[in-house]
């Protein structure tokens, strides 16, 4: 599978984020095993050490644990943890940049909400839980 890795951050970080994303989307369930380093390396055609690094990061953050002889498994309760953390990260790091772009393009909140409906087959549609930023 050809994945386009971007040039902004090291691949192992991008892999790490990919796993995080999978956990949040529930594609990777708690208690489920991560695919082996070998399998991921072969499928994405990346150096196995890079995969190991990403996996190590996940282990260091106690998001996955090693089960002897079986590999790495997503720990229980991890999704909640990750969700919280990612929310914070988004609000503090990413959102401000997006906000700046919105202002630059002079987009109105209605336009923003309308675009969500346009998005094809989106699993989660927008449910406003916070006040709209202005």
């Amino acid at each position, binding site marked *: 599978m050809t994945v386009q*890795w*971007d*040039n*902004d*951050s*090291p*691949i192992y970080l991008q892999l790490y984020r990919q796993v995080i994303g999978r956990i949040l989307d529930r594609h990777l369930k708690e208690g489920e095993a991560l695919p082996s380093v*070998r*399998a991921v*390396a*072969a*499928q*994405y*055609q*990346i*150096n*196995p*050490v*890079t995969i190991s690094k990403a996996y190590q990061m996940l282990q260091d953050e106690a998001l996955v644990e090693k089960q002897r002889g079986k590999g790495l498994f997503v720990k229980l309760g991890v999704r909640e943890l990750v969700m919280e953390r990612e929310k914070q990260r988004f609000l503090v790091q990413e959102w401000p940049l997006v906000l700046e772009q919105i202002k630059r393009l002079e987009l109105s909140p209605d336009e923003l909400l309308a675009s969500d409906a346009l998005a094809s087959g989106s699993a989660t549609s927008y449910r406003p839980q916070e006040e709209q930023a202005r």
Partner: protein
Amino acid sequence: MNSVITIKGLCKDYKGHQALKSVDLDIREGEIWGLVGPNGSGKTTCLQAIMGLIGYEGDIEVLGQKPNHKRHKLLENLAYVADVAVLPEWIKVEQAITYMKGVHPNFNEAKARSFLDKTNIKYHSKVSSLSKGMKAQVHLALIMAVDAKILILDEPTLGLDILTRKQFYTHLLDDFYSPEKCIIITTHQIEEVENILSNVAFINQGSIALSKSVEDLQSQYKLLALDNEKLEDATLLKPLFTNSLMGMTSMLLDLTNLSAEQMDLLPSLGKLSTASLADVFVGLAGQKSDKEELNHG
């Protein structure tokens, strides 16, 4: 990690033409090296020296021994494909497997068969009846079924279609690679192999221009995308190359050439991103190199 191949001061002279000028390399277990260089750069000569095919000056130690002393013993643990198009035309695939089984103590027949089973190649076919891509597949399948500590592949995907190339890399990583082995690949298609490499050596005109881990290289070389307005300020950064298009300029920077102040200045000049190996190589090859300016691994 242990060293598997150690090269110090390797020189090779061919009647007045110096093919290799004091090459140093240290290759360890678990590493996947890319040896990159233009045609005539000496990369094949370097590999030939490692494979015990030619005489040389300097020191080479492969798995603890000199490569041209008792070469056949070394070959039990060093597998190589010097050219994918060299299987004998008269041999049948089945015969080639039988031969390797009888002659190579580390040949794993099951591995070879499991790979070939996934292809359309019939065991009783003569090599001469196979297409170019299939011949390469057979050769690679046979060599990668050897449980060798070192695998050297000189342009293994030359002339192969995209599907075969992808299959090959998958097979390499899935079935062959292990943290105790090391792999050296030469290829003209750096982009294809970029993410697989752990280390890279650029060789040009017989000398190693650069030999580093990919990680180090990616922290050292960056691409800076900036507006042409900021161009003047940026030239002080000693870029390796500059590319201007549509009011934007892309520069390849060697961060070790920059002072701390210059480093801090970077985000204000433009956007930094990781340089691909291809970018770095083009940048280095294009430079009129003063040897002191280039880093050795």
